[in-house]
């Protein structure tokens, strides 16, 4: 029996067809009670405003310190790591440690976490019915954006907007469409060697091919060998004047509506509390 490599695995069938999957199954850790708790987040907001906002901005938009909202940086930190960063700071940088008891550090952690959480998990207040009316009516959003198979195809589909993006990101995208510097979705015109042009919205490009989407939503994959020249719009085709088109309350209502567009229901205590 010495010569046996024993593989008494928890799932002994782990070499079987599907059982290889079993080991891959993700089991999330139980979060600290403050994470997602509305009261802890509100308490954290006050602490953040007093101690952190000077560098990171009141809503984590960044400034002297890094952007904490949708920055992509702290997404890689789990709750524990974020807690430690706030509590002890980052050595040899301007980021000091917090001089607060653990309970308060957890409240700040919960607030920072909520800043970048999917909007559905930390949905902002607003009149949802009004927001929906604005989406399909005065705001004109549905002319270009889709929701569950309805609406346009000329901009990103928003069916899962609240499940993917934070409320802050959604708000920023409405009032400053070019804040997200990506080229995708900009109008592109290709002059072709064979004559004529092909117009659409850019999905992707490099020196060797361009992928664009036409008005029907159809994708065209065009090799560079066919392209004489590329004309690319500098800015997003989305109107940049929503601050003028809509008043502040209307923007709040629209963000509140979009925040609740999710393919999966909310799970956080914050969302359950209806905030």
């Amino acid at each position: 029996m010495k010569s046996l490599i024993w593989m008494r695995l928890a799932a002994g069938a782990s070499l079987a067809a599907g059982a290889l999957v079993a080991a891959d199954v993700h089991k999330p850790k139980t979060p600290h009670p403050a994470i997602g708790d509305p009261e802890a987040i509100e308490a954290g907001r006050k602490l953040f405003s007093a101690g952190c906002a000077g560098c990171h901005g009141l809503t984590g938009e960044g400034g002297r310190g890094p952007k904490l909202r949708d920055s992509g940086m702290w997404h890689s930190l789990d709750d524990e790591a974020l807690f430690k960063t706030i509590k002890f700071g980052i050595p040899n940088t301007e980021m000091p440690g917090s001089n607060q008891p653990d309970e308060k550090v957890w409240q700040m952690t919960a607030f920072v976490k909520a800043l970048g959480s999917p909007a559905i998990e930390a949905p902002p207040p607003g009149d949802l019915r009004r927001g929906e009316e604005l989406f399909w009516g005065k705001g004109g959003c549905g002319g270009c954006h889709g929701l569950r198979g309805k609406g346009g195809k000329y901009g990103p589909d928003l069916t899962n907007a609240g499940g993917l993006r934070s409320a802050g990101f959604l708000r920023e995208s409405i009032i400053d469409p070019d804040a997200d510097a990506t080229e995708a979705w900009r109008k592109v015109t290709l002059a072709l060697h064979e004559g004529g042009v092909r117009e659409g919205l850019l999905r992707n490009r490099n020196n060797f091919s361009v992928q664009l989407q036409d008005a029907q939503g159809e994708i065209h994959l065009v090799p560079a060998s066919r392209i004489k020249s590329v004309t690319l719009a500098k800015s997003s085709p989305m109107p940049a004047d929503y601050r003028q088109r809509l008043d502040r309350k209307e923007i709040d209502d629209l963000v509140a509506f979009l925040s609740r567009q999710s393919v999966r229901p909310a799970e956080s205590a914050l969302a359950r509390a209806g905030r």
Partner: protein
Amino acid sequence: MRMDRTLAWACALCAAAVAQVKYEDILAGPGANWLTYAGSYSGQRHSPLRQITAANAGSLVPKWTFHIPKANGLRTSPIVYQGMMYVTDSNTMYALDARTGRLVWEYRDTRAKKTGVNRGAAILGDNVYFVTADVHLVALDRRTGAVRWQTKYGEIDKGLFSTAAPLIAKDKVIVGVAGGDTGMRGYVAAINAHTGEELWRTYTIPAKGEPGSETWSDLHDWGGAATWLSGTFDPELNLLYWPTGNPWPDFYGGNRAGDNLYSCSVLALDLDTGKMKWYFQFTPHDTHDWDAQAWPVLVDLPYQGKPRKLMLYGNRNGFYYVLDRVTGQFLHATKLVDNVDWASGIDANGRPVLVPGKDPTPGGTRACPGVMGATNWPSPSFNPATGLLYIMTLEQCDVYTSSAKEPEPAKGFSGGGVGRSKEEPGQYVLRALEPTTGKRVWEYRMNGPVSAWPGTVSTAGGVIFSADDDGHLLALDARTGKVLWRYQMGEVIAASPITYAVDGKQYVSIASATAVWSFGLFEPQPPMSPPPVRVVR
């Protein structure tokens, strides 16, 4: 005002009529497109493309590689439609330019409750479909990746998750559920391809009191028989053929006396109703985790002088079967691999003739095949021109132990375990079989670390593509098994290849552990300058 201009511009871009994928397109089988996991409903995984031949396969080169972030052990089999390729990973789908590997869009369900392997996508109309690990079927717009709808068709707290590529049959999406090694109750479900509404569900374990329930003790709700893979479909008979998984606990059968229907079986289900027309159980009362997770390949061939609708089935239990797919009648079985010692053969009714003393025991019992099976999820293929079935097999034995502990579902308990001798690591062998007898025509033995599970694809160019357990993608002569070309991909390969064409050029594509690759014939590249780009306000 700007919005008005935008809309006016958008309306001015009126494109030609959009070509949707029709059921008839899938029915027609592969050509330039590859529209379903196995290429066709028959599961033959054979393409009529013939640009790559045995004569020129030696000049194949990689055309592109698409690395999938955080991928680990990809199983996805791509589908291709009009130059767009769709590949999946855990809770994620990518749409790629099939000529260049450039990403067009991606969809990521970041809030799924589980992660796990995913075997691929399906396509119909303007929708592409895939399952999330936590048992949701997702319909996305094939062009934009926009969510059309998402339907939950199972509960993870019932021990379920999902891995299979959905199968489109007429206007239905057929899906299954995984998880049979830690307690669950398997089923096949049909979902309306347009609305996401569940139309029928057929359980693979009868409920208490139903016919077949007497083949279990009290494990009806947790006995496994998962549906890890999708199946094949006969449109004339309107029958789906679906493989089922092992009974649970995997290695101890003391608390599930009986045959444990319909585990380790293939089920023939009416597409319209889900009603079972017939079943065939390969391994009654399995105690070695030899589920039937392999592909039922459908062929119409003369059998003993008469034309017959056949099903070819290489099984994990070590035997190769030929069934009549109209009635489920057992016709023939023979050893698929040399190392089979738990049964001396298959009797006239298709039942294994057991060799005593091969059940797992607390102290360990050596039995062959090993727990990975004589074959497994990798796709076999059938080439009508050579008349041969190509199937990946594994020569291996294991020492199986059992535990009579009271089974507790969803706790990782499988009723025992498996050990393997260092002196007997096993060997993968790609085999070409005469389909009605299972007689070996040629075989290709591999000498890697015995860790892989690549499938096959057959082409009219007389070339079979597969891979070995040392990271090589292989092109083999369909008639002789000679290696025509190889490419070291540098990773474990546990997926099945496909072939497709764009702009008149044939490609072969396969996923390695972390990336999707595409290969084609070498072409000299003329000098080029990138087109000028002008950015305007």
